[in-house]
């Protein structure tokens, strides 16, 4: 990266380190940090949306919808994450390809399953084998977002379902007394008030989600833990200009600091949101706030 990096074996100390930390391989590590952050930024709202949908469905008066909401939460919560990640993603990918195969290659006469091979026509491959590597990586990334959202959506659904039931019945009754329909009472009274009950559970989920990102490598997305392992491994002179012994401990220490800082910042932000949500609520926290102000 820097002009003095052409012959690293002559460098020492800080200048060596500055060259070492800016190799193409390290840039991959920095990119993976961004990938993880983007993944979290997309997954969290999508999972919350899934959770909200499932929690509302589980409360529905319409029986099949209620079954769907409750079935989704109990099944996904009951399956170990790692099994879900290994099985579900391959199944999802094959389902997409199978549908595309049916549409695009109606004349295909060979079976799709040949022994353990899963064979679809070239035009049905997702992404196409001719597409550049970044398309494959983006596709893998979106599969990851979808899978994370489904898993964490189920947990969020359970939290939100509980939170909806925790809103005092008297609030809904008052709404009904004012002549609001069920729908109006749900959106105007229940939803704004439930967040204060949901937030402790949701913040736990967020913390677990942050730490679950190493599961990404199972889906073929190279995350920070993968690169820390790869970069920290012993490097001999024959294959690199920057030979070093096993430096796993330093890379994992850096990861530790990264995750600790990240969770600390999350805690601070969540505490602020909690304070804001508590305002004017008929809870112990809301009461304390009111007394402090008076």
């Amino acid at each position, binding site marked *: 990266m820097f002009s003095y990096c052409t012959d690293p074996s002559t460098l020492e100390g800080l200048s060596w380190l500055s060259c070492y930390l800016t190799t193409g*391989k390290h840039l991959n590590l920095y990119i993976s940090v961004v990938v993880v952050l983007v993944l979290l930024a997309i997954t969290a709202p999508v999972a919350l949306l899934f959770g909200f949908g499932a929690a509302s469905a589980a409360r529905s008066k319409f029986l099949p919808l209620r079954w769907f909401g409750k079935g989704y939460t109990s099944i996904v919560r009951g399956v170990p994450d790692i099994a879900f990640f290994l099985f579900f993603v*391959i199944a999802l990918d094959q389902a997409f390809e199978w549908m595309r195969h049916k549409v695009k290659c109606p004349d295909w006469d060979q079976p799709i399953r*040949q022994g353990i*091979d899963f064979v679809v026509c070239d035009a049905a491959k997702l*992404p196409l084998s001719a597409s550049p590597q970044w398309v494959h990586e983006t*596709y893998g990334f979106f599969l990851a977002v979808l899978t994370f959202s489904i898993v964490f959506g189920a947990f969020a659904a359970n939290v939100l379902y509980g939170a909806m039931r925790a809103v005092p019945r008297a609030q809904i009754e008052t709404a009904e007394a004012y002549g609001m329909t069920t729908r109006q009472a749900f959106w105007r009274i229940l939803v704004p008030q439930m967040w204060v009950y949901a937030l402790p559970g949701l913040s736990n989920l967020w913390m677990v989600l942050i730490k679950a990102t190493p599961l990404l490598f199972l889906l*073929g997305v*190279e995350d920070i833990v993968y690169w820390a392992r790869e970069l920290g491994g012993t490097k001999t002179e024959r294959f690199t200009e920057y030979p070093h012994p096993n430096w796993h401990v330093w890379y994992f220490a850096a990861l530790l600091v990264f995750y600790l800082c990240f969770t600390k910042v999350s805690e601070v932000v969540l505490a602020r949101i909690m304070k804001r949500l508590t305002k004017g609520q008929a809870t112990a926290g809301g009461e304390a706030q009111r007394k402090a102000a008076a």
Partner: protein
Amino acid sequence: MKSLILGTAALALSAGMGLAETVRLGTEGAYAPWNFVNDAGEIDGFERELGDELCKRAELTCEWVKNDWDSIIPNLVSGNYDTIIAGMSITDERDEVIDFTQPYTPPDPSAYVAQSADIDLESGVIAAQATTIQAAFVAEQGWTLVEFATPEETVAAVRNGEADAVLADKSFLDTVVGDDLVMLEKTEALGGGVGMGFRESDAELRGKFDAAIQSMKDDGSLNELIAKWEVSSQW
């Protein structure tokens, strides 16, 4: 999201037109000198050069894909890439699941590396990478086996005393022996050489690479590559 996928797929379709057939090569990227990730973050090593040359001879466009060793066969059969080129020895068990080309390196002895040369293998703990011919061999002998996901970890286990010795391809262990580790004189003849793996339904593509390997054997360029990277004995 659906429209986004369709959008990228459409983009990819238009971008891919007019090119020769694209073949995706799957490798591990953690097994120097066979395959590893170089300073620039790209796949490098004996198999990188070999694969690129084979693709040129077979007139195919090739794309390199990195995949964990553990799931390298499942991802091949489910179609995430088209071939495995990752120092994979040809064995009967693997041949039941996938098909191999002819070997591109001859069968070579596996070697042991330990902290001292006077170790007793039968009573000791032997480290090997999971789902390799070496792990299968140690298990067959009835010795105590500890498996690790990556080659690096098997060597680290010997360094920190968790295992007494590691069994792996000699060419890989040659890169790790140094002041604190020694190679034992005892070697084991395992596997039937290293070949490229294909889906059993993909005989046509396998034929193309088979022919390309044969042509590299015939003109001696394969031996030159083997000598350059010191991966095995020559043909």
